[in-house]
């Protein structure tokens, strides 16, 4: 009916997924600690984003909007999982892939980050790795600004403690 509009939509979808899939998948992998699950959630994220493309008027906000969807999908999954199996969130199936087992410093950073709750981890990744401002992260994670700041501070403390151990060694 509107071939041009559909073509434009398809092009926008392609650009969106190609630009952001790397960070969205990495973000979800770090939250779920499960590669296959993270990719499934990333797929849901993009499919939901495609359906709601019209909601984002400002291109500069696309990234934080996508992370907002991804984080909401992650939380939905955690809730469903808890409801179904009555398991704690940390008991979600963790990756047993051995192909890319981190070693040395990488492993220690991963352990330091894994000691944080998923909310704290999400805030740290967004603010410290992906350059989100605290308010952008607060919006993406749907949390109060003060909570995000304290999550990031807690993450920094963990990483500082880790660095201190390394400097002493």
């Amino acid at each position, binding site marked *: 009916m509107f071939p041009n509009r559909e073509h434009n939509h398809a092009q926008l979808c392609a650009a969106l997924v190609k630009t952001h899939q790397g960070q969205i998948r990495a973000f979800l992998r770090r939250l779920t600690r499960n590669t296959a699950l993270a990719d499934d959630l990333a797929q849901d994220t993009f499919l939901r984003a495609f359906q709601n493309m019209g909601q984002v008027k400002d291109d500069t906000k696309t990234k934080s909007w996508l992370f907002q969807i991804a984080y909401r999908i992650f939380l939905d999954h955690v809730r469903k999982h808890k409801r179904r199996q009555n398991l704690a969130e940390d008991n979600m199936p963790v990756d047993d892939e051995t192909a890319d087992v981190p070693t040395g410093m990488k492993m220690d*950073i991963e352990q330091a980050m894994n000691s944080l709750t998923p909310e704290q981890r999400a805030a740290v*990744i967004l*603010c410290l*790795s992906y350059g989100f401002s605290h308010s952008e992260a607060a919006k993406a994670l749907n949390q109060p600004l003060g909570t995000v700041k304290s999550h990031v501070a807690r993450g*920094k403390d963990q990483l500082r403690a880790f*660095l201190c151990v390394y400097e002493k060694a």
Partner: protein
Amino acid sequence: MMVDNTENNEFRELLSDYAAPISDDGFSDHILMQAHAPRHTGAIKNLMVGIAALLATFLAIPQLGKLKHLLAGVQLPELGLPANILESASMPNLTIFALLALLIVSVAGSFLFSSDV
């Protein structure tokens, strides 16, 4: 305000591997294929909501008489106001119809046009 100072840069550096973007490896193509595959769930949902709204309308219309009767039976306390004021405040049938229709349309509309995000 961007979270950007020397310490944050150190942390960013430290986490560069941890949060490194994942290489595509066909993920985008897979997603785009999924997105453009024909889906009928939306159409089915809309059809079901439409049928439900229609059924609700058919069920609601015969009840209007009873509703009118019920409303007429409501005994209001005497306020000592002139009778013509109370008469002018009574709800005409048309308004009841309009309110019910609005309710049904808004419920159906909220299902049809609401988005998940």
